């Protein structure tokens, strides 16, 4: 049985340079669903990315900057991008250093929209169809 997030993860993972895409619980730092390339440690990425996103969100709030819309960490051997929608779930993508961040950012924000279409944070049927059509 495929999870309700499979379509979102499929779209993100098909982007060039994406090594892993994950839906993570911000509070627990554990994977809800993930598409991870061989050799990537999904659990470690989930724990660290969720912690980083949480800290960024709290820092932005403390600085009275409002909600975090997009988080990007550039490192020597890759990038981590994350978006969250106000609920507990965060979408995380790990990419190669050469990946097109602009494109990935756009896909992440589109994926986030599908979260926000329903109250429970799960993607709606319409969003699933949109994902199918974009293949």
């Amino acid at each position, binding site marked *: 049985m495929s999870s309700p997030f499979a379509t979102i993860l499929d779209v993100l993972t098909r982007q060039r340079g994406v090594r892993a895409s994950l839906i993570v619980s911000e509070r*627990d*730092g*554990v994977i809800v669903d993930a598409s991870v390339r061989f050799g990537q440690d999904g659990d*470690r990425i*989930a*724990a660290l990315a*969720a*912690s980083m996103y949480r800290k960024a969100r709290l820092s932005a709030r403390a600085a009275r900057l409002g909600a975090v819309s997009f988080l990007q960490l550039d490192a020597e051997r890759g990038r981590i991008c994350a978006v969250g929608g106000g609920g507990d779930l965060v979408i995380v993508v790990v990419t190669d250093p050469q990946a097109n961040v602009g494109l990935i950012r756009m896909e992440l924000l589109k994926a986030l929209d599908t979260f926000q279409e329903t109250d429970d944070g799960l993607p709606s049927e319409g969003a699933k169809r949109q994902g199918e059509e974009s293949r």
Partner: protein
Amino acid sequence: MKIATVESWVATPLQSFVDEARVQLALVLHPSGQAVAQAGFTRRMDVMTACALAAASHATASELGRYVDGKPFRGLHYAGPDKQLFIGTVETRAGAYICLTVFDEESSLGLVRMYFDDLSRELAAAAPAPLENRTDVLAVDFEADLNKNLAMLFGRGGDVIIRNA
């Protein structure tokens, strides 16, 4: 956070775990309930209670795991409203140890599990070879060993003496 240990090889890995996972309390103990190392506890009575409860929870979870899955569960997590606890087993050549840790929203289950895996690897690498003449813990020795361990963890002052009922 200050670490107190009975077995010195536990100190460095446990210090790393506590610092990196940002946990509030950590306790390493034998499955029998004897404390080996602690971080964050201020009263020896709390350590004794935590050791007894952690050993009991571990034994229960292990048996439950064997019952439903054919093998013992390796980790146990409980999330309260403010604090969470995680109990895991560390296998070393010196035998099995239990690690109990308590954390709040400064950390997360994912981080604790991740750093617990690192702790397990570091303890397994640092553990001394088992003693050849090591014997099972006997009830008569248990109290003496427990008191000795607690005295080492908290100093000699205000020792709690455990007596048979």
